[in-house]
């Protein structure tokens, strides 16, 4: 049987590359990747992808990257497609005035500038960490590992000076704080908003009370993520014991539903990891989330720590219908697609246009506009105006 090639469609190529990884033979690229777990590569159609290249499973990948004169190409053995390496941001080489390297504080992933001010995740202390967790988080959450607000603000400033308007993405691990981590993120978020005209997203845990979701919006978050990760109830309990016992799947879904009513359309999302549950249940998750106005974001499981968790077999042929389903679901529910876009770590609904028949292959004018600097400024302006109109402080009524 002829081997299927995905080279001619950037959306499927991105999915296949993210699933199978990339072999790096070229010493120059190796040096450029600099030991990172994934490298950011610009595929045709300005599709950016963070492709695993150092994990064990990548050794069996049919894909390799080669240098062709001044350019680069990815080959699958049957053909090749021209790509470009996303340059390493220059600000990574700088340091804050207290001497912390900018690259330690923030990482650029496509249009996102990802910052995790504290590496603590208390799931580890309670021994209920997510079983797929790559352990990015310092398990003890030592005090000295928390970046100060000033350091973070300086880093964001350096990134904005170089990149224009990235979306500043603040994330936090689990803590027992009823605000889901928002009380901790508040000074960071507010300082960033005070200093720069940029959009922000927060990845936090569902707070105990919905009023914290109101607060999250009011304090300046333009987008919110509460990642349920696994939709299937039983698998959720097994794979995410901390989330299941200390927060509960219902609370995740309720918080997402409420947040979707507070935040603008398309700005509330939740990860559903592809490969940790059967595709059918991911599709059910997609239906549920889009039904409540939430954008499902589907990262593909990279088996770095726990290979046994991954469903088997997991192939691009199995995954593609799930992504097609995602595109159709968000389109049918009329959810705005302009927020969750240009992400290197996941395939976004905007990129899936080329995958679904009748969806129109070309990127629309609006899509292009929101990708530009001006578009980003306009998005920031609209988002700020919306917040001004929607947020009210409540004062005690002095009546009689």
């Amino acid at each position, binding site marked *: 049987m002829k081997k299927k090639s995905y080279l001619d469609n950037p959306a499927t190529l991105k999915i296949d590359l993210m699933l199978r990884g990339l072999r790096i033979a070229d010493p120059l690229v190796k040096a450029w990747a600099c030991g990172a777990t994934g490298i950011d590569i610009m595929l045709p159609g300005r599709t950016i992808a963070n492709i695993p290249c150092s994990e064990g499973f990548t050794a069996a990948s049919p894909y390799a990257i080669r240098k062709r004169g001044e350019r680069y190409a990815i080959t699958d053995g049957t053909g090749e497609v021209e790509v470009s390496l996303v340059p390493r941001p220059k600000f990574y080489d700088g340091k804050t005035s207290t001497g912390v390297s900018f690259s330690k504080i923030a990482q650029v992933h496509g249009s996102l500038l990802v910052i995790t001010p504290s590496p603590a995740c208390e799931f580890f202390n309670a021994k209920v960490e997510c079983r797929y967790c790559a352990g990015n988080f310092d398990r003890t959450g030592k005090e000295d590992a928390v970046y100060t607000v000033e350091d973070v603000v300086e880093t964001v400033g350096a990134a904005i000076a170089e990149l224009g308007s990235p979306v500043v993405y603040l994330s936090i691990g689990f803590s027992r704080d009823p605000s889901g981590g928002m009380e901790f993120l508040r000074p960071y978020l507010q300082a960033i908003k005070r200093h720069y005209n940029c959009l922000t997203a927060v990845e936090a845990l569902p707070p105990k009370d919905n*009023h914290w979701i*109101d*607060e999250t*919006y*009011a304090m300046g978050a333009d987008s919110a993520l509460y990642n349920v990760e696994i939709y299937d109830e039983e698998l959720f309990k097994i794979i995410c014991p901390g989330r299941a016992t200390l927060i509960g799947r219902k609370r995740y879904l309720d918080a997402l539903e409420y947040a979707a*009513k*507070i935040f603008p359309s398309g700005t509330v999302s939740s990860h559903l990891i592809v490969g940790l549950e059967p595709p059918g249940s991911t599709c059910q998750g997609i239906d549920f989330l889009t039904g409540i106005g939430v954008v499902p974001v589907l990262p593909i499981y990279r088996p770095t720590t726990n290979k046994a968790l991954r469903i088997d077999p997991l192939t691009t042929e199995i995954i593609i219908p799930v992504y097609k389903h995602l595109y159709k679901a968000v389109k049918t529910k009329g959810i705005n697609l302009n927020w969750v876009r240009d992400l290197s770590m996941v395939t976004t609904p905007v990129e899936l246009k080329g995958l679904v028949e009748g969806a129109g292959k070309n990127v629309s004018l609006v899509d292009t506009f929101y990708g530009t600097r001006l578009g980003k400024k306009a998005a920031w302006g609209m988002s700020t105006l*919306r917040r001004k*109109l*929607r*947020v*009210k*402080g*409540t*004062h005690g*009524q*002095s*009546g*009689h």
Partner: protein
Amino acid sequence: MTVEIDTRPLWLIIALRALRPIFFAALLVLFIALLYMPAPAGLSPEGQKAIAIFAVCFILWISNALPLAITSLFAIVLVPLFGVLSKRETYALFGNEAVFFILGAFILAGAVMHSGLSTRVALTIMDRFGASPKRLILSIFLLAAALSFLMSEHAVAAMLFPIVFEISKGLNLKPGASNYGKLLFFSLAWGCVIGGVATFLGGARVPLAIGILKETTGKTIEFSDYIIAVFPIVIALLFAGYFIMTYFFPIDVTDIDKAHNVLGKRIKTLGKITYMEYAVGVVMLVTILAWVFLGKRFGLAGIALSSVVALFVLRLVRWKDIEEYVNWGIILMYGGAIILGAALDKSGAASWLVNSIMGGWSDSPVVVFALLSLLTIALTEAMSNAAVIVILLPVSIGLADKLSIDPAAMTYAIAVPAGLAFMFPMSTPANAIAVSSNYISVRDMAKGGFIMCVLSWLVFNLAAAFYWPLIGMGYLK
């Protein structure tokens, strides 16, 4: 400050925001039109200006487009600016005795609350007398009323709310579903509302009404006379209130031991009664006796302020402690309202309004009295009761003059019903606090409240017709 997110469609929010400037522009146009239109016969130029200012303030008060106190300040600016009264006269009116009485009452109530005396009394009474579900409801109801005889009903509601809320939680009552939960908060809200009309101390509206009466006619109402006239009405309403709430929401619990655990725990944390509580209690008692027996001689404000001085001489409170209890907004509002009332009267606008608008209602004092009290009750359900007084009283006093009704009696007809706000959360803070518990819905409140409104109007008019003559009061001069 907590945030709230307005989730209405954005177009609606934008439209509503745009309405505000349109509203103010329209108000300005109306003001100018009223100022410069040809004056109707019988209305002096000052009277016309006073009516224009009154109309603007009236709209601002009922629309709540500006805080009530700021509307009052606006009136204070406009009255001398348009020459209705001189500057000297306008600002001197702010020094009205009623304003200082209100200030004194706020500080005294603040001292009682700060000392912890009011909380102790509340907890002890509920614990002692609330042995059964029925008696607990009764004790909260009567306690809220009795405390509102002595201090602002809003302060009483705010003070008792956390205790009642803890009781409802302790009893595991389901918000919205439990009848007993509803009864707990109805007894709190209605107790405060009914008790709040019993004396001058339940709210600042009676002193305000008396301030307007004094500025326009030179007459006044004594502390003890007021209590004698109103107390039987309060007793009747307390009976009616209890029966109406238990009729609509029959008691659905049998055991309230857990409520006593909550009260017991709270009482324990208070420890034994302190010197401060004793001393503040004595000052308060002496003050009330002085109001009753020496009010005529020394003036209510004089007594209130003397007690305030005594509190500080005895070092029972510090300014810092009571500052938060003084509602300066209300004081500003009342000062402005008195000025506007005087402006309407002195410019002849009030009597012109009476003749041209209310003149044709009826020549019967009983009918006019009944209609005005009905109008007051209806208005107070939807707007601030102080605003109701300032809108209706100056005109009503003018009408009293025309129909030979005693202006003091007319003052009762507005001041007492203005406090009887039973129906909506926006009617009075006590209702708002009760609804905020989530045990009572706005619908529940409107249902029972409507019957209470009708009943209280009937009781008030029956008392005026049959009881007041017995104590030497009457409609007629």
